[in-house]
């Protein structure tokens, strides 16, 4: 029930508290509204219960296993939240003088240095306010680099067909044409197709490695050499950084620019659309173009780097330094883990994924790349279940909800029919992983014996199977009062 539907004319929040008459002064008559705003009229208790109840209906990482591939839904340690909420940090005003802000500037500078070290890049800017903005900044720097050399005939960005949809969007936002590169049957990029596509028009290539197919492209060094030889730059989409943290560095693979999703790898919250943080790191030749502000350190003091120090910067992407509170959480997380902890993140995220993959294959499920070792995530395809039993991936996903598991990513990447992209992360224990595998087997049995149960799932949730086709065709999000 919507809060609007609970509304009763004249009811208000202050049940027993005496009402003060409200006087408006200084607002001309013509600008005052003639009818009251159509807000729900409910008691304070009703409002509290309504929103508390809604929050309890949520699936969240704090309440459910959330193996949403490509999203790295790991636990956000409470300690990091506490650090970011320290009054000395929270009460900083962005216009406060540098001399009064040395603590928070030191945190930002340390985070820049730690991200630089873990990715093998020459310099890092924290200011992009989300992954998509980081991508935009990265491609904008590639463009700035070519333009600074008057190399303006480079109009194309190459993107593998397995890429996240944000990659072509970012390239196009920066004025480039996109050329798609196919993937070979083993999950690695098709090198012949890459060779054909490379040329004097190539500005760069955007790669995710490990890719969205859950495998590490073994020919990355060859790819880097080929692209550099053609005069293009290499962009690393940091979406899957969790798998290689402390093990392999994009800088060492030959990448020129990287964005990192702090809400994935560095465990800051996945808000409902924000706030995010998408720092970018670059190789030596792209340093002048990094977005500002960044934090500099001269051995004594920390200070802002702005247009003055970085005249060739691509500029500012948001007010001030991006989402400071999110950066502080990532700083606390990185300090808490240290170098050793970062290695363990990669080891356990990959171990958990490979454990689940093996167990699911043993249970009879079909892996998309059975001959490849999984990275921090892997794909199974329910193509056989769909054709033989008429129970498809969406049905499995909905039935998982009934068992208290958030569904893995469905129908992505598009290359694999009827796929589930499963990413357990390093923060889940073995019993949770076993529980998920058990439920998958149970749903498989149901699909054979009582397929309708699966096809009409979910059964235990506040809403049943939603008609997503109707919702897409006739989008209607507006509540209207019933005519009286």
């Amino acid at each position, binding site marked *: 029930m919507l809060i609007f539907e609970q509304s009763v004319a004249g009811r208000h929040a202050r049940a027993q508290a005496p009402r003060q008459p409200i006087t408006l002064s200084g607002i001309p008559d013509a600008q005052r509204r003639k009818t009251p705003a159509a807000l729900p009229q409910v008691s304070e208790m009703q409002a509290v219960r309504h929103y508390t109840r809604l929050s309890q209906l949520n699936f969240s990482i704090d309440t459910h296993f959330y193996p949403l591939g490509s999203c790295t839904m790991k636990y956000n340690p409470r300690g990091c939240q506490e650090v970011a909420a320290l009054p000395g940090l929270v009460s900083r005003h962005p216009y406060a003088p540098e001399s009064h802000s040395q603590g928070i500037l030191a945190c930002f500078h340390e985070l820049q240095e730690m991200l630089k070290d873990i990715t093998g890049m020459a310099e890092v800017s924290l200011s992009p306010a989300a992954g998509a903005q980081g991508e935009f900044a990265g491609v904008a720097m590639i463009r700035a680099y070519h333009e600074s050399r008057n190399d303006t005939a480079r109009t194309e960005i190459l993107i593998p067909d397995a890429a996240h949809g944000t990659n072509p969007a970012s390239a196009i936002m920066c004025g480039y044409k996109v050329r798609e590169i196919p993937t070979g049957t083993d999950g690695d990029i098709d090198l012949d197709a890459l060779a054909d596509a490379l040329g004097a028009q190539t500005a760069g290539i955007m790669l995710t490695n490990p890719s969205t197919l859950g495998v590490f492209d073994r020919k990355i060094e060859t790819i880097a050499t080929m692209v550099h030889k053609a005069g293009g730059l290499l962009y690393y989409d940091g979406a899957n950084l969790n798998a290689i943290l402390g093990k392999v560095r994009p800088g060492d693979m030959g990448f020129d620019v990287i964005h990192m999703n702090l809400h994935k790898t560095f465990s800051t919250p996945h808000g409902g659309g924000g706030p995010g943080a998408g720092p970018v790191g670059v190789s030596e030749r792209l340093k002048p173009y990094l977005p500002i502000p960044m934090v500099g350190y001269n051995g004594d003091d920390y200070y802002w780097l702005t247009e003055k120090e970085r005249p060739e910067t691509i500029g500012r992407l948001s007010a001030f330094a991006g989402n400071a509170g999110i950066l502080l959480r990532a700083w606390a997380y990185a300090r808490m883990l240290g170098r050793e902890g970062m290695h363990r993140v990669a080891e356990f995220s990959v171990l958990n994924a490979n454990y689940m993959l093996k167990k699911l294959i043993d249970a009879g499920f079909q892996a998309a790349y059975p001959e490849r070792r999984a990275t921090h995530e892997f794909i199974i395809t329910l193509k056989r279940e769909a054709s033989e039993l008429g129970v498809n991936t969406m049905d499995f996903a909905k039935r998982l909800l009934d068992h208290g598991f958030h569904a893995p990513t*469905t*129908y*992505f990447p*598009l290359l694999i*029919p009827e796929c589930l992209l499963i990413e357990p992360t390093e923060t889940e224990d073995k019993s949770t992983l076993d529980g998920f595998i058990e439920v998958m087997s149970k749903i498989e049995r149901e699909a054979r014996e009582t397929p309708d149960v699966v096809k009409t799932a979910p059964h235990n949730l506040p809403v049943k199977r939603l008609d997503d*086709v109707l919702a*897409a*065709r006739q989008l209607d999000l507006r509540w209207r009062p019933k005519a009286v």
Partner: protein
Amino acid sequence: MSDIPAELLYTKSHEWIRDDGDGTVTIGITDHAQELLGDLVFVELPEVGDNVESGADCAVVESVKAASDVYSPVAGEIIEVNEALADAPETINESPYAEGWLFKVKLAEKADLSHLLSADAYQAIEDVD
């Protein structure tokens, strides 16, 4: 098993092409393609008068699962688009080879149809899929 009319030509990327015999062709997506995509909810069509190259992306079909580019299999000028799809994208699901056509192209002089697949050749690709 999906429907693959013998009189049409096909592409690996699941478009069909009907030679209208007067220097123009009609293009749509195959029954197999609509089946893979599922219920379509949105279609973006090219503009009449656009010149397209062979292999260029010129339309988008979107389902609740995925948005997919449609490539023009031939070079030429767009002379007509199926406006009715804007309000009824499900027509493609219901009738991929007739009412669900996407656009018509007037073939350029250099246009070449020799790379297009016969129904049998397309069937072979679909079998692998």
